[in-house]
């Protein structure tokens, strides 16, 4: 590499990337495109169990899977991440804090130099827990809230979930935890509340994090009603530009970069290149939004564990190969948006080498119109709470003697 005046670039909060001062932002992106020896960070969903049933849950969570990793297996994963020098993991679920060994695993990770940021709906963030969290440099917390009012939030996340999240933030704030994250999935219903979300974050000393709604998991069922309108996308982009690095995005809005200047961050799909997902049963997927067999790279229970999956999986190798741009190649904005989000295309039934369904140039909308919604692939994993009420059956009269007793009809000798 030639010597530029920019030998070191700062990247802001993970997993975002080079700031405006970078002399050659494109260059690093190109390097990342080819993948890293280890992920920068990865998402690890510890359980499919959840006390909530959010309508847009990207992992279709609800019920625990009996095959979930044991405490010992989780510790082995952490040992591997330490060896690979993965700086930190984003722990999620389901609701990760409902695992009885959750705090044990957090302590084990931080003792082994793997930082932890975990996402929670706040259900277990008591004043005692908040005090403990505030004392560690190596643990960060992300509270999920999808409406700045109970009305908007609870319609998506369920009754009482707004109050739970607010109480958790109050506890964190009172314990002196500064800079925890308030994480919001942007929808048609909450984009008018952008300023209100910022106020809530400021009130609790939190940092606002806005992410994109994906048609993943149960999100596929509600995406058409919940995803922002074209006009709202523009409003969101302008708001993000105005707030710069103060507001985190997890790099999830890089498809909006085609409006003009790039948003802070990597502006590339990191799937299998700089990020991936380990799910509760040890399956490794290219990205947290792509829980489908087509994006399954391997399982950490197999020989070689996570490291072998990251380095040797043929799926990841193909994701790291230079992409051609496909149908988007002739578009003048391809260098900005890079075709958008793989998972968003896949779960809306669009080809992976074409436009994003929310392409700001409008190509996604016309592509969607030509795809029957029934052709979109269904998630291959579903742990949703069963919504059909289970009724305890009452004894019905036997329709046949043998229903009562196999010996019915045999007279005692």
């Amino acid at each position, binding site marked *: 590499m030639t010597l530029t005046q920019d030998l*070191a670039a700062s990247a802001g909060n993970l997993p975002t990337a080079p700031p405006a*001062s970078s002399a050659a932002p494109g260059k690093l992106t190109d390097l990342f495109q080819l993948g890293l020896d280890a992920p920068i960070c990865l998402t690890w969903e510890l359980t499919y169990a959840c006390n909530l049933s959010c309508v847009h849950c990207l992992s279709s969570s609800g019920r625990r899977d009996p095959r979930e990793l044991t405490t010992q297996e989780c510790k082995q994963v952490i040992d591997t991440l330490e060896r690979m020098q993965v700086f930190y993991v984003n722990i999620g679920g389901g609701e990760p804090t409902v695992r009885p060994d959750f705090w044990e695993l957090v302590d084990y990770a931080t003792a082994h130099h793997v930082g932890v940021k975990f996402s929670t709906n706040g259900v277990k963030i008591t004043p005692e827990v908040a005090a403990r969290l505030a004392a560690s440099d190596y643990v960060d917390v992300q509270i999920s809230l999808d409406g700045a009012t109970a009305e908007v939030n609870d319609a998506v996340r369920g009754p009482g979930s707004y109050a739970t999240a607010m109480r958790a933030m109050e506890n964190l704030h009172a314990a002196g935890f500064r800079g925890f994250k308030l994480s919001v999935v942007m929808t048609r219903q909450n984009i008018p509340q952008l300023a209100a979300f910022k106020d809530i974050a400021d009130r609790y000393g939190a940092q606002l994090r806005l992410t994109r709604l994906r048609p993943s998991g149960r999100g596929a069922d509600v995406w058409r009603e919940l995803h922002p309108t074209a006009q709202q996308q523009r409003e969101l982009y302008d708001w993000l530009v105005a707030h710069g690095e103060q507001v985190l995005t997890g790099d999830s809005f890089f498809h909006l970069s085609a409006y003009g200047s790039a948003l802070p961050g990597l502006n590339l799909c990191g799937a299998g290149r700089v990020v991936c997902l380990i799910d509760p049963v040890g399956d490794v997927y290219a990205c947290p939004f792509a829980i489908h067999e087509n994006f399954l790279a391997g399982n950490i229970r197999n020989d070689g564990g996570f490291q072998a999956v990251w380095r040797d999986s043929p799926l990841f190798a193909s994701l790291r190969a230079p992409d051609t741009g496909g149908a988007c190649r002739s578009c003048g904005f391809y260098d900005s948006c890079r075709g958008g989000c793989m998972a968003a295309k896949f779960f809306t039934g669009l080809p992976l080498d074409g436009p994003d369904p929310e392409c700001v140039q409008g190509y996604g909308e016309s592509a969607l119109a030509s795809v029957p919604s029934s052709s979109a692939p269904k998630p291959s994993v579903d742990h949703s709470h069963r919504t059909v009420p289970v009724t305890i059956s009452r004894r019905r009269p036997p329709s046949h003697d043998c229903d009562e007793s196999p010996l019915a009809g045999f007279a005692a000798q």
Partner: protein
Amino acid sequence: MSTDTTRFDLDRPWRVDPRVSMRPEPFGALLYHFGTRRLSFLKNQRVLAVVRSLADHPSARAACTAAGVTEAELPAYARALSALAESDMISERTVV
């Protein structure tokens, strides 16, 4: 982030912040600061060698020289170190 180098003194002793984790990569290295939760990149092997050896030298200038940085290249390295200092990845160490 400013590229102002007036705050960076090449002739002072420096070190990598103890809360920083450094991971070599083919293009240089990734640095992650657990306190600020920020990520930085080192874009080549030589700047990595400089940063790694800061604590072993009486000054940042000496660390650069030992890593083979020429006089002509020095300003670029000073700017890189300055950026790292501004994001708290490296800090001045007190000489005993």
